């Protein structure tokens, strides 16, 4: 329950951090909030030769509006996202999701760059990156590149980052919709989700004309449900059957796995209930939000 030996460096610039990672030849690990890395170190499930502590790189910590896009620096803490008025107005689904991200002491430390890099299939921020079609700016020894969230997550705890690459910032284009909801269920509040759904809809006259849907906890990565989005277009918002119809669409498009925490049947049942609740809340919010 104590980490194996490692060296430690705390650079104050991004370039120095990337150089240290490249010099470690794949044996280095980035230490940001440390809320996923430290348990792995304590259990000796990872034994890096060096930790590159990026907490001193001030340029990585910001939330700003760049044109229409909300840009979040990789070192921004969960607690800052939870509290940000900009996130509350521009990315309301993220604002609603943040209170489900672990517990206060974890949110005080955990970072968005760390959460995306760790790529837990039941973590909120990877799902939100997918949901909002975020672009992830990363820097490696050979320069910078932008990766679409959709191309970023490969498998559970696996993404496309090279060993010398660091997440620099995450760019979120806001959705100009008029109804949304985030629903999640975990065994204990703040724990990783058994199932979760994010929904955002826009209506024209009495029908949905655009929708965005993502789920997590039901596959090895978070999932964007594009076919469900397309099926929602044209559906009447006043119809009492809409929430049930949406729940059926969602459950028929995922095939959850059974694991220690929940059976596939239970996850499907849970997701059905969460989807119904999400649509009901999204429809109820219409007209009250821009």
């Amino acid at each position: 329950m104590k980490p194996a030996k490692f060296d430690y460096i705390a650079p104050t610039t991004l370039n120095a951090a990337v150089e240290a990672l490249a010099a470690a030849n794949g044996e280095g690990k980035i230490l940001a909030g440390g809320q996923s890395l430290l348990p792995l170190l304590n259990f000796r499930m990872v034994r890096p030769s060096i930790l590159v502590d990026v907490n001193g790189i001030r340029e990585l910590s910001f939330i700003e509006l760049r044109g229409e896009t909300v840009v979040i620096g990789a070192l921004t803490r969960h607690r800052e996202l939870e509290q940000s008025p900009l996130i509350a107005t521009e990315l309301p689904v993220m604002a609603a999701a943040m209170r489900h991200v672990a517990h206060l002491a974890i949110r005080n430390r955990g970072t968005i760059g760390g959460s995306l890099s760790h790529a837990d299939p039941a973590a909120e921020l990877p799902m939100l990156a997918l949901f909002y079609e975020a672009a992830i700016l990363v820097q490696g020894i050979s320069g910078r590149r932008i990766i679409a969230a959709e191309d970023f997550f490969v498998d559970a705890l696996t993404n496309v980052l090279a060993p010398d690459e660091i997440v620099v910032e995450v760019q979120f284009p806001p959705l100009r919709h008029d109804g949304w909801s985030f629903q999640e269920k975990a065994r204990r509040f703040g724990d990783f989700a058994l199932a979760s759904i994010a929904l955002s809809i826009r209506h024209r006259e009495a029908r949905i004309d655009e929708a965005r849907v993502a789920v997590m906890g039901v596959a090895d990565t978070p999932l964007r449900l594009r076919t469900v989005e397309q099926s929602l277009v044209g559906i009447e918002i006043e119809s009492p059957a809409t929430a049930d119809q949406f729940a059926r669409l969602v459950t028929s498009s995922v095939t959850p796995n059974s694991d220690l925490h929940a059976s596939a049947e239970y996850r499907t049942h849970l997701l059905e209930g969460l989807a119904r609740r999400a649509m009901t809340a999204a429809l109820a919010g219409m007209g009250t939000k821009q």
Partner: protein
Amino acid sequence: MTIGVAVTVNGTRHQIADVEPRLLLSDFLRDTLGLTGTHVGCEHGVCGACTVLMNGDSVRSCLTLAVQANGADITTVEGLGTPEALNSLQAQFREHHGLQCGFCTPGMLITGEDLLRKYPLATDDEIREGLSGNLCRCTGYQNIVAAIRSAAALRQRNNK
């Protein structure tokens, strides 16, 4: 490899020349500084017993390296009050019998302090949600929630 760490704990400045990077803040506080009020339970961030304040924010000291606390201001349970002069939250824990074996209590108190400062804690649901990262195996939480509810009301009254 060892690194020098300068840290202020409960108002006292400590300078330790040779800290191994792998040393956890929890072990640094207990073994290096002898402050055993901070308890070590699960050592992977689940139980909350080791929670301390770092620059005013509650953090898991088992998920923080001692070298990361370089330059930081740490408050442990020893820094909240003394047996003769408990702080208002500690006094409410005593008043409401908010502890039995006491193992989780340092983490509960530090988490409670952070919650009291950051959230209005107007409802029991809010208090329970705030405490969801701290495990207690004795009390069933009822009395801990009652103690925090009472401390929140007291502090609100005193701030008016």
